[in-house]
């Protein structure tokens, strides 16, 4: 019988996974407490936001306890149902949700709100694991590839409709999961190459240099490569194809960028690319966020002493920009501790995934790992000015119930699965 316990319930939940989780939540709470506390405050009085966070942490513990009694068989078995229900919730929110900060993605319950898209990540992970982890399934053939990608691209459309571009991006982390599951590596390289071409096209647009120069350069380099490879017909064809398609691609990107994006969106992108300097308008947040982190120096300015974050120079200092507080108050040392905890968790997740007895567990583990990584990457990259300002939370650390509960659910579903089904 397929659905049965392969191990006993005597196993403990993975101690390292739990340890890193507690560490990250604690780091989050300390910094939320600090950044929302009163100016000049030295006593330990909790702000409203810190109180709420305590409540959310309490909720997270309830989630963990509930999961620790969950029947693992059900996790696997219910995957598609969970996916379907959460998808329906995310469609419903489009009609009956309330708008918060331009994104219509919240169900309101009195003073609290809940964002169904936070649970869509888990649901998608489960559905993808269920599909790809099916017996004898291999990641090849058009049908399988299309279904796999469809499973996580459909949520992207829903989230885009909710006006939450940041969260939508996260779903691209499933490509990393597909890579683990056998997607050819050249697709990743191709993605990198397209990304590079995209950035170059935007830089040329931003500097108002005609895109002919970029196309000319690509074709020129291609011609030289063809000359050196002229003995092999195969290479000539390949290089010609790459050069021509690259030229076409960058031309299209340039036109799309110019016509489709609004000026403020272009501003954001161009500020990050260093094409524009604007310390008062768009770039203000970015600039202040860098100032906050830079101000921490080696050992930080100390608990509750981060004026940059506390005084509101950094926006959303307890949610999306919580990392600024870590950087400002705890300095480089604090950043190393935080990074170590996060990287520790991710690597532990890879180890756990690799020891799964079935593909379902492995894919679920990699999904969790890649989602967490992508969130971390976009969030930190934003605060240090490497990628555009995209509002997504830092897992376990940012204030807020949906985010904490969503990620807790995500992580502990896998940890629970691992607890029971590991080899």
């Amino acid at each position, binding site marked *: 019988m397929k659905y049965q316990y392969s191990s006993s319930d005597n196993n403990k939940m993975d101690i390292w996974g739990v340890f890193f989780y507690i560490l990250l939540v604690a780091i989050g709470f300390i910094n939320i407490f600090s950044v929302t506390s009163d100016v000049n405050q030295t006593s330990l009085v909790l702000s409203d936001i810190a109180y709420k966070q305590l409540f959310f942490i309490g909720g997270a513990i309830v989630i963990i306890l509930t999961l620790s009694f969950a029947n693992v068989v059900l996790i696997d078995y219910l995957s598609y149902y969970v996916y379907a229900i959460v998808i329906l919730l995310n469609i419903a929110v489009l009609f009956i949700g309330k708008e918060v900060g331009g994104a219509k993605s919240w169900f309101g319950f009195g003073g609290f709100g809940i964002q169904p898209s936070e649970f869509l990540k888990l649901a998608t992970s489960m559905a993808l694991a269920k599909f790809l982890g099916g017996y004898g399934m291999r990641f090849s053939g058009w049908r399988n590839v299309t279904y796999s990608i469809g499973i996580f691209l459909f949520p992207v459309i829903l989230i885009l409709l909710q006006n939450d571009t940041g969260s939508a991006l996260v779903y691209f982390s499933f490509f990393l999961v597909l890579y683990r599951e056998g997607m050819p590596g050249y697709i990743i390289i191709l993605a990198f190459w397209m990304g590079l071409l995209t950035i170059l096209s935007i830089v040329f647009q931003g500097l108002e240099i005609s895109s002919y120069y970029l196309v000319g350069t690509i074709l020129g380099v291609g011609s030289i490569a063809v000359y050196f490879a002229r003995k092999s017909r195969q290479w000539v064809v390949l290089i010609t194809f790459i050069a021509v398609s690259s030229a076409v691609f960058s031309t299209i990107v340039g036109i799309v960028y110019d016509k489709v994006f609004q000026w403020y969106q272009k501003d954001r992108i161009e500020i990050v690319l260093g094409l524009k300097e604007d310390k008062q308008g768009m770039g203000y947040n970015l600039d202040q966020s860098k100032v906050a982190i830079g*101000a*921490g120096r080696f050992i930080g300015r100390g608990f509750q002493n981060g004026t940059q974050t506390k*005084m509101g120079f950094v926006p959303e200092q307890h949610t999306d920009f919580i990392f600024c507080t870590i950087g400002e108050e705890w300095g*480089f040392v604090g950043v190393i501790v935080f990074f170590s905890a996060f990287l520790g968790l991710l690597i532990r997740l890879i180890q756990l995934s690799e020891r799964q007895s079935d593909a379902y567990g*492995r894919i679920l583990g990699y999904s969790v790992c890649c989602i967490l*990584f992508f969130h971390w990457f976009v969030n930190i990259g934003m605060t240090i000015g490497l990628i555009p300002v995209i509002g997504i939370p830092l897992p376990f650390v940012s204030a807020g119930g949906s985010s904490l509960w969503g990620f807790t659910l995500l992580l502990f579903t896998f940890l629970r699965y691992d607890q029971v089904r590991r080899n």
Partner: protein
Amino acid sequence: MQDVHKNRSRVFVVGLSFVFLLFLYRIGTLQLVDDKYEKRAINNALNKITLYPARSVIYDRFGKIIAKNAASYDLFIFPKEEKVDNRLFIQQILQIDSNQYNKLLTEAWINSKKRQKNNAYNRSAIFYSNLNQQQYTALRENLYRLSGFYIEPRTDRAYEIFGGAHAFGYLGEASEQLLKEDPYYQPGDLVGITGIERYYEEFMRGTKGIKTVWQDRTYKQRGEVQDQAFNYPAKSGPDFYATIDIELQKFAEELFNGKRGSVVAIEPSTGEVLAFLNKPDYNPNDLVGQDRARSFRKMLIDPKKPLYNRAVKGVYPPGSTVKTVLALIGLQEGIIHPGSTKGCGGGYRMGNIVVGCHPHGGPLDVVGSIRISCNSYYCGLFREIIDHPKYGSTHNGYRVLERYWRSFGLGDPTGIDLLGESSGNVPTVERLAKRHGKKWRSSMVISLGIGQGEILLTPLQLANVAAILANRGYYIPPHLLKKVNGLKNNGLKEEYRTKKIIPIDAKHFETVIEGMSQVMKPGGTANGIGINGIEICGKTGTAQNPHGKDHSLFIAFAPRNNPKIAIGVIVENGGFGATYAAPIASLMIEKYLMRDTASSKQFMIDRLKSTVLEPQ
């Protein structure tokens, strides 16, 4: 099923670690390279609020308060936080139109950027200075809803007694140039522009304090920074005692009613200036507060020039007053002795040049020549000195004379503690050559002997000559600072504690002083103008004025022995020295020496007060 891609897990571990290190490197470049971000963070969150010190209170020499401080309020703005909704309200309170409002806002934008050198980011700037009481009250009550605005208190002058305006000077807003030169000042700061307010600005201004407050992104103050290193109180300027006797000063101003000119009175033994008067003058209370700029512009274009400090900037031919000096030089050089007499036939004749003299009796000795102020005597003496064979040539002889003059402080600034003092004019041989030709002879410059021609003195120099005569041969540069408690040497410079010695023997002074004493007596040019019971030594002067009526001049000191006051008076277009200048000097001497007794010459006071030479 076989997992063919198991080795890809290693790609993940390596890839993730690489990205983490990359980010860590980026964060390291922000945190570990230098402290520029730390400085910016500190500047962001702290607003250093200037605490304005009270300026030195100015007292007269007897401790009467002349100028003190009054609270004044300036409206400041963080231009970024200004809201369009509030404009109308603010325009109504300040009674300005929208154009003026926009102009003020633009200026504030510019100034808020300038201030960045002191306090790098997010600075505010002055929007409207010197709010009046109504404006202050109305704004303060509504400040909570006027985003971006706040009020800063500072101090302005308030004058208890209107007198000595040109000595004390006025305050004004720090100029662009000053702001550039001295980082202590910020736009809108009040600084001394003239007078001792300007000269002693550095300690009269006191020391600004700082109150540091937390400030959030919208510039809302979020409480005081507790660390004492960020807060220090303002230190008031120390009490400033001026040398002026304000009662004497006021008295002189009354006597000068309706006249134009200048009086300087000096305590001879110390060089302390007892009275320092210019007419026309202004009311110092017009140059404070909101009306400052408007009044100032009005005064600038006023043809009467109320701001003009003629006591140190105006130059006049000294006329007969400097005969005293010439007599001393003649005596010291041995060219005459006290008994040397000269005749006078109603004037001094050289060929076809005649220097007229008024009718008087028989040959005069030195004493008589001063009593009578005989022009012939001094024309003759002048030529005898510079043409004396012992000097080899007229020009060399003149050089000797010029050196003496300069030793009396003529032709050079006296060094009073005011800026912009004129040197007056004592011509050099070369100057005279330009005017009269290279081979000029004594006959061509004869008028110098009677204080006319190229020689020009300031009223201050004139008074200083009186002080030298009183001291029998020395002076201390006149000054307006008496003492500042707590400063080394009471704040007095070395120069104001050092005698300048005139190379003329005291016995020669006694001869000249005898003559000056007789000026006030029967047969003297100022007979009847003296004061009973005080032996005044004086010398009249009547300076020809190419632009109009002669100027009336007088120098004097009293009492003869152990003099307490020396004085120089010029009444422009006042005619004879004895007409206005001498009585003013006499009355001031009486006032100073017998301050609490009723004047013995009340009729003279009444006459002077009511004589209007020109409408004011």
